[in-house]
């Protein structure tokens, strides 16, 4: 009657279960409000009056783009992207491990790697619209340049991919993954990454910001990798995190 379950099928089952569990009204409202706040900051900065009458049009455009890159990097990539990813990704395997429901996926003839991938995809699916939409709107409000909007959307997507994988892993490693994750976001991504280009290379934010700087030619301290590196490294981080999460799933004690 029963048998083993293929990897693809396991991903689909895990995904279906977790999507239903993750989308709660409270989470969606809270995170949408944070997104809205980011858009409002972008709109207020983008519409602020300045004493720019002594500058030519090109300089004004550059100044506006510098402001935009700085704000998107600071608020978007330091707060919104990691926090949204943390809330959903840590709630996948982390919450299941803590409330005891993990055994319903663990004690099954299913490959562990596929459970980890299904968990990651579910958190990715929910996190992407909650970050892409507000940051896309913020970029538009700050500067109407299409390149900035495209760079913002690309960097956001890459950031969400890396952060969700990292926080899925974190959920398998520690209890109260949200608290540990917030500590990581504030201390590592927020403070350590701001110490300069070398420190930024060991933080996801350094790469997301690099995509912005590479595509807009606006330089900020936390992002000086090439665009190819800035895309590839977060993807490798995601791959590594999911591999470790799979291994961890196989070795952990399930309550």
């Amino acid at each position, binding site marked *: 009657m029963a048998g083993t379950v293929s990897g693809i099928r396991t991903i689909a089952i895990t995904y279906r279960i977790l999507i239903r569990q993750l989308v709660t009204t409270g989470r969606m409202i809270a995170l949408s409000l944070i997104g809205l706040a980011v858009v409002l900051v972008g709109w207020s900065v983008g519409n602020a009056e300045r004493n720019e009458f002594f500058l030519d049009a090109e300089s004004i455009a550059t100044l506006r783009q510098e402001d935009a890159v700085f704000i998107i990097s600071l608020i978007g990539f330091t707060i919104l992207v990691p926090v949204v990813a943390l809330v959903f990704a840590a709630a996948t395997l982390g919450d299941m491990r803590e409330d005891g429901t993990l055994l*319903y996926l663990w004690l099954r003839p299913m490959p562990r790697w596929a459970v980890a991938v299904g968990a990651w995809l579910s958190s990715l699916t929910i996190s992407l619209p909650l970050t892409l939409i507000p940051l896309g709107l913020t970029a538009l409000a700050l500067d109407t340049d299409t390149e900035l909007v495209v760079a913002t959307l690309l960097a956001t997507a890459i950031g969400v991919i890396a952060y969700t994988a990292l926080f899925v892993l974190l959920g398998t490693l520690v209890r109260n993954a949200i608290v540990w994750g917030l500590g990581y976001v504030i201390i590592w991504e927020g403070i350590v990454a701001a110490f300069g280009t070398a420190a930024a290379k060991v933080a996801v934010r350094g790469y997301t910001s690099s995509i912005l700087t590479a595509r807009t030619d606006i330089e900020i301290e936390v992002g000086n990798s090439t665009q190819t590196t800035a895309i590839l490294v977060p993807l490798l981080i995601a791959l590594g995190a999911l591999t470790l999460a799979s291994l961890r799933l196989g070795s952990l004690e399930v*309550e």
Partner: protein
Amino acid sequence: MPGSLPPPPPPPKVPMVAVTNVTKAYGDVVAVSDVTFTVGPGITALLGPNGAGKSTLFRMMCGLAPPTRGTVHVLGQNARTNAEVRGKIGLAPQQDALFDRLSALEFVEMMALTHGVADARAAAIHALGLVDLDVNEPKGVGSYSKGMRQRVKLAAALVNDPEVLILDEPLTGLDPVQRRRMIELFHELADLGKCVLVSSHVLDEVARLGSEVLVIAQGRLAATGDFHALRNQMDDRPHRLHVEVDDPRRLGAALFDRGLVSGVAVVGDALECTTPDVDRFGRQLAPTAKELGIRLRVMRSLDDDLESVFRYLVER
């Protein structure tokens, strides 16, 4: 009888679960200590007080936790490393957590899918029928009562038609009718040759299962065998009783003189008696008190609770 052979012994039960010299420690705390047993088809009850190590043993059988020492095999395999054998186990865990936003049908159907059941919807409907739950109930299981959630867990454990069914306190939260129905169901499954392991800390529940029993106390296997034999063994132990009377000294002396007690102590206006034959003591106490003109107020057992039974089994 000349010329006739003795009847052949019953065939040995195939060990479907084999626990060999298993110890499980969490730091300095030993949850299970050097336990060895095998379990074959039929119902086997793990009886023990809360915290005795029953759930830890179940978790190790399912592979959810590795033993610190020893080996645990289900159907000859280690469930922690063998995916195929995990598909032959049905577990109803003690903890209450479910995917609360799913309806009962959705939940059990998902569980069927996780086992690779071909027609998951049909299997889920069948399993929910076995536990008398409404398949058309659209509400999420998060809104269910404890008894309903318990039955959802049972349905989820049954949905893959497992060969080994591990049920951790499965009767908790069920009303008497549901309990009777579930016990019948366990017997039906056992009759089909399945290995049904049921844990309980309630002696009467195990009595109704009428099964092989493994008594677990303080992480050790305290006793094993047929429930009724075990029950008789428990009844043979010395009993302690608390008796409140008007004149405890006089009654105590009389009980001792008549051989009804092997020990007696006066505690305030009460007696604490130890008797080797609780039935005889019960029959003779009131006539003795009446004969001496002593008013008997209260009599209660000091060790009829399960904890003391376990203590007796462990200490003997």
